[in-house]
């Protein structure tokens, strides 16, 4: 049922995986719109909903390597179908459960696990396998752009859905949409059954051990941590920062979010495209350095609506542009057999960074009454990631010949 006679062609993989990514990334991106209606309907504080979202992000990272292992071993199609069902379960859970702890834990685990099965990590394996080597980086760029497109487009869609149908019905519609789109797309991604060559093939444990002992992989993990920290700190705290600095007009904060979302699509695509013919480590370094410059200039320049717009457009270009390059380097070094799992491990570090970015932003603001310290940490981490990515050796790892088992 989950295998086909021949592998899907490159265009089919891009289209089907792009649609899955668009929905997976898009739906979760707009979940914040339910904060108020759910909290009001159940008489909760905002903490319950915030905890659910924080748990989703952490669980997405924690389940990532396991979903990747499953995708590498049993095929991406099967993992996406499971992910779609989990996504549906998570959305229905959010619609129906009115006990706060059950709500937070259940939706956190279900949607976090669903994302690990339907977003970048799990998908990267099949995208890498279907793309000719010279187009692999571009393929990762297109996938990332599809995810970015979903984030940009689904926010207004979800907001309208709640306005028109009500918050509970909106969950039902979305859960139906997720299953009706993702499951057929998963079937377009079916691959032939793996045939063992008889030679000893690298096991999951051997691949994990090899990667974690390899210095460039450690550098990538460190860099991706910074990516998560910066992106989520800015995404979550920029509106509060603007308000704190006297830019009270919500139009400015919303236009900033829209600009980040719009430019993110182009940044993801072109990063992948450039990665096809320029060293990816230098591109990654340049991205982190450019973020550092953009943040520094934003803080040093007099704050105005235009400085916010320019900063948002610049950060949008640099937002998810690290994804195709990081996945491209992993594929180049370790090959495609365990790509989804290894991407999952690196992404776990991204999610830990995300969690710290959003938490530390709030914690330091409460303690010090300003975002100054956390901005300084963000700049320092940017410089750290700039340096960390420079020595990454992108060449395929040399393995000692393995004895036949």
């Amino acid at each position: 049922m989950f295998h086909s006679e021949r592998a899907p062609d490159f265009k089919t993989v891009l289209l089907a995986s792009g649609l899955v990514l668009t929905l997976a990334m898009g739906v979760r991106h707009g979940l914040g719109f339910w904060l108020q209606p759910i909290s009001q309907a159940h008489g909760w504080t905002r903490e319950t909903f915030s905890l659910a979202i924080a748990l989703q992000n952490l669980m997405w990272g924690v389940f990532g390597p396991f979903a990747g292992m499953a995708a590498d071993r049993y095929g991406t199609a099967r993992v996406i179908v499971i992910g779609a069902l989990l996504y549906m379960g998570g959305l229905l859970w959010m619609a129906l459960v009115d006990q706060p702890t059950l709500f937070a834990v259940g939706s956190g685990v279900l949607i976090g696990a669903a994302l690990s099965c339907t977003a970048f990590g799990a998908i990267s394996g099949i995208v890498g396998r279907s793309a000719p080597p010279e187009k692999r980086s571009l393929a990762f760029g297109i996938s990332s752009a599809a995810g970015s497109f979903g984030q940009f487009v689904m926010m207004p869609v979800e907001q309208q859905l709640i306005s028109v149908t009500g918050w509970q019905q909106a969950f039902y519609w979305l859960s139906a949409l997720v299953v009706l789109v993702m499951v057929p797309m998963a079937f377009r991604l079916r691959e032939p059954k793996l045939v063992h060559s008889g030679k000893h093939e690298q096991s999951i444990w051997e691949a994990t051990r090899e990667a974690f002992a390899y210095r460039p992989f450690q550098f990538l993990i460190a860099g991706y941590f910074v990516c998560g920290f910066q992106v989520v700190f800015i995404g979550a705290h920029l509106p509060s920062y603007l308000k704190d600095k006297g830019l009270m007009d919500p139009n400015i904060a919303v236009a900033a979010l829209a600009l980040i979302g719009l430019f993110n699509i182009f940044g993801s695509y072109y990063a992948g495209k450039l990665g096809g013919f320029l060293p990816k480590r230098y591109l990654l370094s340049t991205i982190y350095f450019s973020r550092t410059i953009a943040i520094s200039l934003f803080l040093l320049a007099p704050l105005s609506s235009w400085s916010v717009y320019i900063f948002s457009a610049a950060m949008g270009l640099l937002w998810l542009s690290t994804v195709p390059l990081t996945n491209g380097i992993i594929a180049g070094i370790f090959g495609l057999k365990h790509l989804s799992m290894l991407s999952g491990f690196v992404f776990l570090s991204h999610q830990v960074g995300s969690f710290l970015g959003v938490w530390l932003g709030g914690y330091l603001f409460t303690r010090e009454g300003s975002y100054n310290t956390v901005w300084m940490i963000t700049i320092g981490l940017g410089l750290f990631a700039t340096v960390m990515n420079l020595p990454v050796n992108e060449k395929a790892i040399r393995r000692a010949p393995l004895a036949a088992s």
Partner: protein
Amino acid sequence: MRSRHPRLTRAAILAALGVVLGATFLAYLRPDFIFDVANRIVLCF
């Protein structure tokens, strides 16, 4: 299935994408959207 006019197809896809992106950007600037975002404290990045 290959298109007979790949350039036209490409231009049509890009135009459609431009329309979707433009319309979405304008949707962000609708007053009810701004009101909803302004009332959020959790942004799901």
